[in-house]
């Protein structure tokens, strides 16, 4: 089965064509057009700018892809969570295509898409994740531990009580005077820094349960930066910056790894570990989870780096496992759901 995926929930406009083989997903085409350059000017996403860009870019991407009606069995589009105006552009585009091409359409949860990035592979012979799978979701808007008991069946084990981990990276970057988007900059600088130099709190580590909290960590970085400025009477420069980044990164990543381990202990039925979301590109996190999975002798699935950020291949991949819900009538009723949540 071949599924066309369309994604416009935030910064990226994307289109992809995938096919299923032996329970896994192979990407035939994946085009992503990022608006990060545009948003850099404003220090963040501007919804109206985002929506306007998506409109212009989607049609161009579609032409560039060369995908035609006969290539597609089903269409999958991100229905939420995300920015409502941006989501609507992708949904309207998908509805128009579904109507014109007479193809079934299905709305896909964006976070579910990130999870299904783990089904994408070039090696069809490698088995797909088996259930129940523990999913650690780390992005700008989400920090969650989900137990995935089957396709589309999620149980929420824990989540952030305030800021998402990706947001903590971006806001800390802003505090340190780094340009947008700051998260990847922190990780890069952290590589040459000493993570033991500054002792930042590991939020929620002492608490029972599997929830996270990141707003206090950001405050702690701010206090430390103030102190450095006061005692040295100068701005943050030189080796201080990599050390601050490394120390912050260690404090941000450790609770993710420890809570994942706690979830593994609490649910012995777990068969594999999957990582999803934009922060899954973080090297420290990938390394620590690899160690954890080796220790517990569980297969670990991490998305290929090109599919860690927002893309449409992951939406099409999720659509492959949602195809029975797709309908020819869906162009009438798929709607944007900016606050949708996965799992109960």
């Amino acid at each position, binding site marked *: 089965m071949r599924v066309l995926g369309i994604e416009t929930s935030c910064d990226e406009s994307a289109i992809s064509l995938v096919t299923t083989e032996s329970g896994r997903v192979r990407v035939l085409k994946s085009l992503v057009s990022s608006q990060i350059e545009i948003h850099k000017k*404003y*220090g*963040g*996403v*501007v*919804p*109206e*700018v985002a929506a306007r860009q998506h409109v212009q870019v989607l049609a161009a991407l579609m032409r560039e892809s060369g995908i035609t009606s006969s290539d597609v069995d089903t269409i999958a589009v991100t229905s939420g*969570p*995300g*920015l*409502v*105006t941006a989501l609507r552009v992708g949904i309207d585009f998908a509805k128009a295509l579904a109507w014109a091409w007479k193809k079934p359409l299905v709305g896909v949860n964006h976070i579910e898409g990130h999870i299904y990035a783990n089904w994408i592979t070039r090696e069809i012979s490698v088995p797909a994740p088996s259930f129940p799978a523990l999913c650690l979701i780390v992005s*700008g*808007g989400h920090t969650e531990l989900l137990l995935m008991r089957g396709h589309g069946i999620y149980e929420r084990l824990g*989540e*952030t*009580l*305030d*800021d*998402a981990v990706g*947001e903590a990276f971006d*806001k800390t970057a*802003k*505090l340190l005077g780094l340009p947008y988007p700051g998260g990847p900059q922190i990780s890069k600088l952290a590589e040459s820094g000493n993570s033991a130099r500054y002792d930042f709190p590991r939020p929620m580590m002492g608490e029972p349960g599997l*929830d996270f909290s990141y*707003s206090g960590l*950001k*405050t*702690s*970085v*701010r*206090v430390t930066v103030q102190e450095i400025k006061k005692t040295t009477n100068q701005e943050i420069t030189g080796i201080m910056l990599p050390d601050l980044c490394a120390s912050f990164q260690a404090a941000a990543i450790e609770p993710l790894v420890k809570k994942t381990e706690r979830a593994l202990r609490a649910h012995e039925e777990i068969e594999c570990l999957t990582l999803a979301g934009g922060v899954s590109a973080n090297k420290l996190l990938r390394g620590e989870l690899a160690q954890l999975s080796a220790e517990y002798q569980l297969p670990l699935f991490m998305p290929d780096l090109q599919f860690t950020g927002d893309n449409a291949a992951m939406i099409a991949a999720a659509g492959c496992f949602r195809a029975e819900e797709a309908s020819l009538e869906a162009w009438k009723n798929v709607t944007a759901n*900016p*606050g949708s949540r996965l799992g109960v």
Partner: protein
Amino acid sequence: MRQEIKKSRNQNIKDLAELQEFARKFALEMRAGEVYGFSGDLGAGKTTLIQMIGRELGITVPMTSPTFVFRKEYAVNKSINQEIKKSRGQDIGRLIHIDAYRIESGNAEDLGELRESDALTFIEWPERIEKILPPGAKRISIEILKDESRKIVLT
């Protein structure tokens, strides 16, 4: 000058317990249809204060940061709402939590309606959407003092 002083109120907060006490009293003053702007640097405690007020109003689900999606809404617990009605003579149906941190000033249809008659609206980073703030919006600013205590100014 005199009028300015009369209109605004200051309170010094030295720890989370004091912030909690402030949130409890402050929540009692709030009425549906009101809009509150919360200003303060990154890490000043805007979200923390809003979460505390939310709990006073019976929001039991985690109130997570709306930075990424700009707007989140919460239904006020029905039984708590009964108490609110008794003490205030009026319901508060919803709490709307908006964060303008990522928005360029005054161009923001994604934030949705800022003032709704059945809801309380809390807006973080209101200075970034000054042009579209509803008239009469109340302002709360959290200043970080040298000793890391906070000064809250209401205007």
